[in-house]
């Protein structure tokens, strides 16, 4: 039930395990006796695993009657999800702000589970007529989730693996560099901090930081912004409210903490 307070809780039941990769799994859930709230691009959810805890996850796909999550090994809860996907679960959301900029062209640079956040954005933007290039990097083929199903025909997907086992050999950052950043109105990165740092440095060195956005991760507890856990370093921005996508120009402290710029 959609609540007057903007957030809602909905019970989920596992409908399919869509993919198992190295240290990752792609799960499809359906609402159970409730209607899923609308998730707009880059909004995320708290995914509750009964008996364990709730973790912040951006749905890789969400509609009224289906929600898919890409889960990567991080700690004990994600380990349990991967080993034994919960048949029953719950979802709280939507959290954060949607990021839906109008642009002629958009370069999305994704690594790891970061791709989950960018796929709804890519699909949405392509439908809006934006030229979308999605760079999806991983260490090796077995880590690449089958994301094509979510993208539609109009997103240009460029896959890269560190070992060259699939797509281009190299990192997502390498591919982004080669893609010619100046051709894009908007550049968005989502993934491991090192990757985001790489793109940050790249766009910064080319003087393109004003085009750059990053989908970040912080510690998320309440997910609604009141507990303060998701505060971005030395800003007053709450990831759960103004995020998860932030413009490059406010990332200073985050970069300070996460990236070695030396």
């Amino acid at each position, binding site marked *: *039930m959609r*609540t*007057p*307070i*903007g*957030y*809602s*809780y909905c*019970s989920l*039941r596992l409908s399919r395990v869509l993919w198992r990769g190295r240290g990752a799994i792609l799960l499809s859930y359906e609402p*159970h*006796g409730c209607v899923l709230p609308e998730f707009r691009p880059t909004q995320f959810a*708290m995914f*509750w695993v*009964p*008996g364990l*805890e*709730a*973790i912040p996850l951006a749905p890789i796909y969400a509609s009224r009657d289906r929600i898919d999550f890409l889960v990567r090994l991080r700690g004990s809860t994600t380990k349990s999800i991967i080993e034994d996907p919960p048949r*029953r*679960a*719950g979802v*709280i959301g939507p959290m954060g702000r949607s990021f839906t900029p109008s642009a002629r062209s958009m370069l999305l640079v994704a690594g790891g589970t970061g791709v989950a956040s960018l796929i709804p954005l890519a699909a949405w933007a392509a439908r809006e007529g934006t030229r979308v290039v999605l760079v999806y990097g991983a260490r090796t083929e077995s880590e690449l989730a089958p994301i094509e199903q979510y993208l539609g025909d109009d997103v240009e997907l460029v896959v890269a693996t560190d070992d060259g086992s699939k797509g281009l050999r190299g990192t997502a950052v390498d591919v982004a560099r080669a893609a010619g950043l100046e051709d894009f109105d908007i550049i968005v990165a989502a993934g491991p901090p090192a990757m985001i740092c790489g793109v*940050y*440095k790249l766009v*910064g*060195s*080319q*003087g393109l*930081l004003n085009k750059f956005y990053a989908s970040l991760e912080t510690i998320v*507890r*309440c*997910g*609604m*912004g*009141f*507990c*303060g*856990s998701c*505060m971005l*370093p*030395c*800003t*007053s921005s*709450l990831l759960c*409210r103004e995020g998860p996508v932030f413009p*490059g*120009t*406010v*990332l*200073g*402290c985050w*970069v*300070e903490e996460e990236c070695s*710029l*030396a």
Partner: protein
Amino acid sequence: MPRPAGFRANSGCPRVESFYYQAGCLFITLKPTAQKPGALRVAVLRIHVAGLELEHPVMNASGILGSSPEALGRLARAGASALVTKSFTKEPREGYPTPIAVPLPYGLLNAVGLSNPGLEGLPSLVKAARRLGRPVIVSIAGSEPGEFAELAAAAEEAGAAAVELNLSCPHARGRGLELGMDPQTVGEIVAAVASTVKIPVLAKLGLVDRLVEAAGKALEAGARGLVLINTLRAMAIDVYAMRPVLGNRVGGLSGPAIHPVAVRAVYEVYREHNCDIIGVGGVEDWRSAAELILAGARAIQVGTAIVTRGEQVIDEIVKGLENYLNEVGVKSLEELVGAAHKQ
């Protein structure tokens, strides 16, 4: 590359709007230094409560954006007339496992677990928060009088305008509602704090059987005001997972669902003690705020509505109250406090 000094959380960062590196250079945007957040309110809403002089009666409830100077800064910019911190305990606390907040149809269920950096983190937060130019009310939670007194002393030293004693957390064993249930204990804790600090002491009481009596003991013991009420102990169960959803299973219910209970509590305590009360519980607009004021509250705390409607709800309530005062033709909020008791 040298680290820019003085920009980190807890250390003056609020004056930096943003900084970033581009093309090898560091760019810094500074905020205007003499930032005067929130519109200046006309005097009709000015109110004294428990020794505090407030521009208007609307502030945040403890636990809402009160864990860092940046979070309190948001509230200041949104126009809160005072800033209430999250509850501090003596020792740092991690808090409960997630989910710590579950949205329900007519309210919010939460069990954060009093997560806070402990006594050690109190001074820096309070000192930074003071720069926001609003009275800082430090919420503290302990298990016995001495602990409360120690925390209160630290808050006073750091510059708090008042301390709010959390005697009503519905899900913190031994340091919450159990204390508030016993009027004697309430009296002892308040007395210990009131004899230790000079700043006003506020006792935050929850829904307990002997609320009116506990309120009386708190006032006798030196509380300058009462904060009424806290969340109601409650639970949500997922009918398919067949488990309580909150990490802590039991939590506190807030939001519109509890508002009529808060109005009653304020009404009954005011009727008996005619004291300074800050009303809390399900305030989401000027009307629900006005009900608490008519019941006897001199000020209002807003919690769930900030979560569900954003910080701008503070300003909406303040403006709504101004209109209301005009509509009913009173010149000062003071005239409305407890007006529902007149026959």
